[in-house]
């Protein structure tokens, strides 16, 4: 009897092993990965239209594989490319497909990213009310430990400043700027918001210090447009402090940065 049971068990295990096939990546999945790499490379090289075509291809392949998470990532990427192409409506539509899906099948983290980006894009377009609604969705999706928390706070501070709620904007920006977990980029953004808030509150010396701190970080990161913004802020504040010569110097530096940017752009177009 025992021998028979043993034989049956072994036979069952054997049949199960024969029936299972090793997991292989489908050709669509491989194609999607290759196309994704290609599209990211195109974006890195500034070839936005090529990147857009590439990400569209990736999305089709991922959807054919029912790859929900991958599709959401690609839709966020498509929104980012569309935003850079100034196709704002298209960018917002891509993000809405993730945020507004009901019932929402996409991972919460990607819903959060989509809502955050939508809010940033709307803020860039000065659609403050809509940006605020979208940011609230992102904040609701973000628990205290979510990785985007400090980025959301900086955006909240930005919206507060745009809405004229300067003190709250300053308070929130100062909190984030002193938190190294935010990352250098968001810390610099927070410092710039704090400086602008202080400038509006006529606290020029503090504003100058914060613009200067933001400038140092932006230099380290190589964000020239932000460097120019910092220098312009310093020039404005220096003028308010009565340092005309210094203000002129900062203005000149900002102008050189902007002009260098323009020249690099025009020389590479020849």
């Amino acid at each position: 009897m025992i021998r028979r049971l043993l034989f049956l068990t072994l036979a069952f295990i054997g049949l199960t092993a024969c029936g299972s096939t090793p997991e292989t990546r489908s050709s669509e999945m491989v194609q999607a990965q290759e196309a994704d790499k290609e599209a990211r490379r195109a974006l890195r090289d500034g070839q936005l239209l090529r990147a857009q075509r590439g990400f569209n291809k990736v999305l089709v392949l991922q959807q054919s594989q029912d790859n929900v998470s991958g599709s959401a990532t690609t839709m966020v990427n498509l929104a980012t490319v569309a935003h850079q192409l100034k196709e704002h409506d298209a960018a917002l539509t891509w993000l809405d497909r993730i945020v507004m899906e009901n019932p929402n099948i996409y991972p919460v983290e990607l819903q959060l990213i989509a809502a955050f980006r939508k809010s940033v894009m709307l803020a860039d377009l000065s659609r403050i009310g809509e940006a605020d609604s979208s940011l609230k969705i992102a904040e609701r999706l973000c628990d205290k430990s979510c990785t985007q928390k400090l980025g959301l706070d900086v955006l909240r501070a930005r919206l507060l400043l745009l809405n004229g709620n300067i003190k709250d904007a300053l308070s929130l920006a100062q909190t984030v700027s002193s938190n190294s977990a935010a990352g250098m980029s968001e810390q610099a953004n927070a410092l710039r918001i704090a400086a602008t808030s202080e400038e509006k509150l006529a606290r020029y010396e503090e504003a100058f210090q914060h613009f200067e701190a933001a400038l140092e970080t932006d230099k380290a990161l190589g964000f020239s447009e932000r460097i120019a913004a910092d220098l312009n802020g310093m020039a404005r504040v220096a003028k308010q402090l009565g340092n005309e010569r210094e203000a002129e110097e900062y203005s000149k530096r900002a102008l050189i940065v902007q002009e260098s940017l323009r020249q690099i752009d025009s020389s590479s177009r020849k």
Partner: protein
Amino acid sequence: MPLLEDKDERFKNLFGKSAIFILVATIGIALAFILVEIKHGAFTAMSPIHFVADSGTDLREGMPVKFSGFKIGKLNQLTLDELGNVQVEVSIDTKYLGLIRQGAVMTLKKEGVIGDGVLEISRGVENKPALKAGGLVSFKREVGLEQAVVDVKNRVMPILDELYDTLHNPQGDVHQTLKNLRQFSTEMLETRERIDRMLDSVDGTLNQDIGPMLESLRKSADSAASLSESLDRELPDLLLKADETMDSLHKASETLNDSVQQTAPQLPGMIEEANATLGKTQGLVGDTQEVVDSLNSTWPFNKNASKHDDEPIRMDSHD
């Protein structure tokens, strides 16, 4: 009483019967002949029309003359006049002559791709009077397949010669593009050096302001140099392919002269190959342009791409 008198009733009036039989047969044959001739238009009133051809090639007596796809006559006579021109007379059914107006053109064409030759007469000029019997029309030959093949050959050959020249000529586009690219990368390096010199002449703080852009410029120059190396690697293969194409073309052009039937099937392949080579060249030049174009905007975007391929592209609260 005759000795050998024919008593058989069947042989009575044999001569008469034979005469009737022969008469009926003759009438039958005559009727058949007449019907055939009627069918062939022997009794149809025909009107002659003339034209002068450059040569008698492909023209033959009895050749049908068509009008709007219907046969309305035939070629009657071909003669060589004292000046060496070929005088041609065609007969047109008189009842259709009224449809043809002065200024009509007689065209020699093929029925189908390799069919028999036919003469097709056009309607003529609308507001001119109808053509009269004995009238003169102009003549032309339609471009046949052979001529079409020669035309295509004449068009393709210069393109391929140009392609060959483009690829091999040191002053050609590809070499010039490479040269320009090298010049461009050199200029990029020179630009970088100029900026470095400029930065040396201003204070250190300003140097730090423009530092990130200078770094970007260096990367751009490096990209240009790497593209140049890539072209150097790929060009020999392309040139080899062009040589193969040229060889194929010369072989095909020799075949062209042999016969239309042999050449016609090869022509699409030949054109396809030429197109493929042209496409590759355009692709190469396109790639060059793409890389040059990418230098326009590398700097603003190079920080946007995520290092992790499964994550969305990075953006912050101010992008």
